[in-house]
């Protein structure tokens, strides 16, 4: 890339990427897409790309006139002067950051098959964190203990936070995604909540306080993992703002 026009265009594209990444890193927006520990790598990438944008815009004008070099091989889809035409696509996701509401996965991404499978990865690990004094538990801990350790039912009050996946007769389904790297690999956890009052609207976030109703003793082991067999009888349902970390991590 030695043609000045191609360099300007490259600088524009790189600036959009760095700006979009920067926007996601302000506040908690990036946590709707990737795991929290990606903050530093993403920040370094944004800085590196911004540096490259500056270099591309200002660093090449020391009399380098080999512009005749890079004429496109048709196979690569090069535009004239060295900037591959495909590079413009890079603008799309990072411009979308400025255009669309920045939301985590929600109810429409929950597929019923494969729900709660995330707990099978901890089959042989006991729940590490006992519930806090007020019963606060991650949904992953709660479902793990219910599914993997039916001999030790979850006693007393629990406080679970998630979003409403669906409203049902006599309650609703509370959901949360478990994410390893990014939203593309997120897996849903689903719990049935019994609640007589008006359930919160779909996709609203809520903290549910209640007690676990163990599944019937004759429930087949492979059915214990299904949402309708993981039931919490709620004593209170509090609608809350979306938490800073919309996902749980395994």
């Amino acid at each position, binding site marked *: 890339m030695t043609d000045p026009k191609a360099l300007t265009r490259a600088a524009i594209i790189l600036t959009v990427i760095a700006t979009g990444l920067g926007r996601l890193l302000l506040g908690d927006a990036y946590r709707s897409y990737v795991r929290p520990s990606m903050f530093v790598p993403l920040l370094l990438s944004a800085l590196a790309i911004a540096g490259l944008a500056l270099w*591309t815009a200002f660093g090449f004008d020391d009399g380098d006139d080999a512009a005749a070099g890079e004429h496109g091989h048709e196979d690569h889809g090069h535009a004239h002067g060295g900037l591959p035409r495909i590079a413009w696509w890079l603008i799309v996701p990072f411009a979308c950051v400025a255009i669309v509401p920045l939301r985590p996965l929600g109810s429409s991404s929950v597929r019923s098959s494969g729900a709660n499978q995330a707990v099978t990865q901890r089959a042989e690990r006991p729940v590490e964190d006992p519930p806090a004094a007020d019963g606060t538990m991650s949904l992953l801990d709660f479902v793990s203990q219910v599914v993997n350790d039916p001999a030790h039912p979850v006693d007393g009050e629990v406080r679970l936070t998630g979003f409403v996946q669906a409203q049902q007769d006599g309650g609703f389904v509370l959901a949360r995604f478990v994410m*390893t790297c990014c939203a593309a690999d997120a897996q849903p956890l689903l719990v049935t909540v019994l609640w007589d009052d008006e359930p919160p609207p779909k996709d609203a976030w809520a903290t549910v306080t209640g007690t676990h109703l163990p599944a019937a003793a004759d429930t087949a082991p492979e059915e214990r993992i299904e949402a309708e067999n993981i039931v919490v009888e709620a004593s209170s349902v509090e609608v809350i703002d979306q938490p800073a970390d919309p996902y749980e991590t395994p």
Partner: protein
Amino acid sequence: MTDLPGDGELAEEQDADVRAMVLAVLVTVVVLVLRSALGPTFAAGRPRAWMTVFIAISVQAMPFLVLGVTLSALIAAFVSPAALARVLPRRRPAAVVVAGGAGFALPGCECGAVPVAGRLIGGGVPAAAALTFLLAAPAINPIVLAATATAFPGHPEVVLARFGASLATAIVVGLIWLRIGDDHDFTPLIERATRSRATGSRWARFADAAAHDLLHAGGWLVVGAAVAATIQVVVPTSVVDALGGLGIVSVIVLGLVAVVLCTCSEADAFVATSFTSFTPTARLAFMVVGPAVDLKLIALQVGTFGRRFARAFAPLTFAVAVACATIAGRFL
């Protein structure tokens, strides 16, 4: 450059300033209009699901792409073809095997490995060896194996099977490429590298190579992310689950799912455990195919090596990966 700008040039510069300002205002207006027009559409339902996955894959890949592009630009700017040739055995089959082993030592991610392989070929490394490295680096590095061990607690044989099948895939594809790939023309890559070595300072070459590789590979990556997000949102998983019990078909099906989902190699083991209706062999195929061939990788390869290459390489890799996983699955 040292001449004082004449009147004409001054006017031209002012013109450029005005144009830049007009452009900036226009872009701001367009963004604001799109925001109010498209914002509500992407606030809920399937458009929101699509957008979240699309942005997530693009963002998640950036650090790995930057790392890979840094490495590829370092190779382009600072490593001479002679030095590369010294590292690898002269006999090409041996070079392929060494490149497979190098994949274990250099933790890469699939997004970063493609531009690195491109620069290795540009630096004169036999294509088959560079491609073996491309397949091995994201699949068998210690980080990926540790993630696999975490996802399958108490089943170290899954980790071993994954390591064996992935390394075998990388080496077998490399050896096959030695036989059938000779007619493929990588001279554009080599010519570009030679031309680039002839110009500018080393750091200028580094920045030029980094910008080129980032823009080239990144553009295709975004196309891959868009296709993957579309399929994730559109194809009902019940269709996939129904195919779980069908023996060898189920292995191929989960292999195809890996191609479509574009999960990072560090995360795919966790996703693999969620396919409960599938056999262990099919889940192994998911983990062996994923880092070797998926939509974003195919897109990256089109960008780096060309369309014709990807048309031959992707099916070859898929077939070898499924075969290796099926064989290794016998030990599960």
